[in-house]
C-alpha cells in the first residue's frame, strides 16, 4: 500500500491531489458526480471583495494540447461566498483553500482577513497572477518587491497559512519565489496560466473577446515542471504544483520536480471524474514503480539519487 498522505501548512491531505482554483467552482458542480471527500483538498474559485461579472464571451478557446481562458475572475463576492458557498463545503472533511484576488493591495488584505475567520478555510492562495484582469498599472505578479509587500501585509492579517500563486509570465520566477518566501509566504502554488492568443482565420480576429487568455492544459506542463524544478531548489517552503496534469505519471513528474502536492485544473473539464481517477491511478502507478511514499520522491530530479525506480525496472 503506497503512502499518499502529504502534510503542508494548513493542508493535511490524505492524498496529494486537489482541484485547482477556477476549475472547480465552489465544489457543488462536481459534488454531484462524486463524494468530494475522496479529494486531498479543494481550492475554490477566486474571491474578490465585490461581486465581479467577469469578461465578455467568448471566454474560452481550444488550442492544440490545451485551452485559453479569460473568464475574468467572475465570482459572487466575499459576502456571498462566506455566507453561501463555503458553508456548503462544511459537510466535507477535507482542507479548503480559497483563492483571493484583487485590484489594489487593500482588496487582498480585506478578503484575506475575512476569509481567515471562516471556520472551514484552511489556507489562502493569493492570486497575484491572473493574466485576464487589468490592474491599473500595478503588477503584483511580476514585480518581486510588490509581491513581497503584498504577501507581508496579507500575512499580518491572515490567521491561516498563505500560499502565493506565481505567474509564469515573468523573466525570473525564482526571484519572485524568493521574494514572497522572505515576506513570509507559507507555500507556493505554481504555475498559473501562460498568456496566449488564438486568431480565427475566417475573421482575422482573436477568438477570445478579451483578445488574450491564459493557456492551460497538457501544453504547459513542461514549463511548469521546469519552473518548479528551479524554484524548489531555491526556497524552503512547499510548492503545490499545477499546470496540465492529466495522468498519474504527470503527478509523479511534478513531485520529482519538487512539488509537495498537486492541483488539477483543465483535466476536470475534460472528465468530471479526473481527480478521483488520478488518485486511484496514482496509487497503482506508485506500486508499479516501487514508490512507497509519495513524499520520498519530492525533488528527486535534483535531490539525492536513491534510485527509486531500480526495484521495478
Amino acid at each position: 500500500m503506497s503512502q499518499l498522505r502529504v502534510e503542508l501548512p494548513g493542508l493535511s491531505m490524505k492524498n496529494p491531489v486537489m482541484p485547482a482554483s477556477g476549475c472547480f467552482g465552489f465544489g457543488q458542480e462536481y459534488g454531484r458526480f462524486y463524494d468530494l471527500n475522496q479529494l486531498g483538498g479543494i481550492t475554490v474559485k477566486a474571491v474578490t471583495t465585490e461581486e465581479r461579472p467577469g469578461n465578455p464571451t467568448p471566454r474560452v478557446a481550444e488550442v492544440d494540447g490545451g485551452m485559453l481562458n479569460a473568464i475574468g475572475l467572475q465570482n459572487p463576492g466575499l459576502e456571498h461566498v462566506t455566507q453561501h458557498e463555503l458553508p456548503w463545503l462544511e459537510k466535507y472533511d477535507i482542507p479548503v483553500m480559497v483563492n483571493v484576488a484583487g485590484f489594489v493591495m487593500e482588496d487582498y488584505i480585506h478578503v484575506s482577513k475575512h476569509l481567515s475567520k471562516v471556520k472551514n478555510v484552511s489556507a489562502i492562495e493569493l492570486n497575484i497572477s491572473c493574466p485576464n484582469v487589468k490592474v491599473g498599472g500595478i503588477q503584483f505578479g511580476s514585480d518581486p518587491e510588490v509581491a513581497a509587500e503584498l504577501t507581508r501585509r496579507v500575512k499580518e492579517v491572515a490567521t491561516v497559512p498563505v500560499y502565493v500563486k506565481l505567474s509564469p509570465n515573468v523573466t525570473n520566477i525564482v526571484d519572485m519565489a524568493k521574494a514572497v518566501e522572505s515576506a513570509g509566504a507559507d507555500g507556493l502554488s505554481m504555475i498559473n496560466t501562460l498568456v496566449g492568443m488564438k486568431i480565427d482565420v475566417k475573421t482575422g480576429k482573436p477568438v477570445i473577446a478579451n483578445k488574450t487568455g491564459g493557456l492551460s492544459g497538457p501544453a504547459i506542463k513542461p514549463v511548469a515542471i521546469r519552473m518548479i524544478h528551479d524554484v524548489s531548489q531555491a526556497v524552503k517552503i512547499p510548492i503545490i504544483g499545477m499546470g496540465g496534469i492529466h495522468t498519474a505519471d504527470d503527478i509523479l513528474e511534478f513531485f520529482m520536480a519538487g512539488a509537495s502536492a498537486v492541483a488539477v485544473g483543465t483535466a476536470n473539464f475534460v472528465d468530471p471524474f479526473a481527480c478521483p481517477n488520478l488518485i486511484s491511478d496514482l496509487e497503482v502507478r506508485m506500486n508499479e514503480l516501487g514508490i512507497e511514499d509519495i513524499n520520498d520522491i519530492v525533488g528527486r530530479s535534483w535531490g539525492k539519487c536513491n534510485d527509486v525506480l531500480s526495484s521495478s525496472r
Partner: protein
Amino acid sequence: MIVENLTVTAQEQLTSNVFKMKLTGDSVAEMTDPGQFVHMKVSNGIDPLLRRPISICDVDLNAKELTIIYRVEGKGTKILSERNDKETINVLGPLGNGFPTDHLHEGDVALLVGGGVGVPPLYYLAKKLVEKGVRLKVILGFRTANDVFLEEEFNEIADVTVTTEDGSKGIKGYVTDAIMQIEEVYQSYFTCGPTPMLRAVQQTAKSDGFVSLEERMGCGVGACLACVCDVAEEYIADGRKYRKACSDGPVFRAGEVLI
C-alpha cells in the same frame, strides 16, 4: 449525469457537412428531456482536448439508442464524423435543462422554429408534444435546398414549412417570413438556431416561448463559467445577473437572457 462509453451503431451523412450518428448505452435511458445535450469526447487522448457539446436529436428509450445530428465545423466534429460502427465514444450526459412542456395540454398548438443544426433538438421535442396531443406548426430554416435535413421525419408527425435563404426550397427567406404567414393562434413557441435567428424569432412570434442557446462551452457542468449569458433586468430575482448556458440552460424562457 453519467460518463459512459457509448457504442456507435450508425453513422450517416445527411448533407455536405451534416451527419447523423446513433449510439447506444445504459446512460441513454436517462435522456428523457428534449433540449438537453451530451458532451462528447470525440477521441481518446489530448487531441482535441475538450469535449464537444451536441444536442440530443432523438432517443429510443427501449433500445437505449441516442440519435445526434451535428455539423462538421472543425477538428473535433471532423473526427466525430469519421468514427465507425462498434467504436465507443466517451459521452457525458444528459446535461442541462431542456424544453418545458408542462404548460401545454391536449389540443393546444405549439410553434417550433429551427435553423440549421438548431433543428435536431426540436425533433425529440416534437415527438413528446405529439404524444401529449399538442398540435404543431414546424418551421425549418436552411440556407439552400441542399442543406435541408429532418424534413421527412418532421413531416410524419407535424405540419412542416421549410424556408431557404435562396428560395431553392419552400419559402424564400428566413424562418421569420414563415412565422409571419401563420394565421392560427399558438400557445407557445420553441426555437433553436443561430443567435441572430433566435433574436428575430423572439421579436416576431406572438406568444410566450423558449429559446435554446448554442454557446462555446468548457466543462459543460456549470463550473468553468465559459458560457455565461447576461440576464434581462426583470429576471434578476435572485440577485444573480447571469445564467450558465450549460447548466441553467441551454433552454431559457424567451427574454430571460440577453441574446
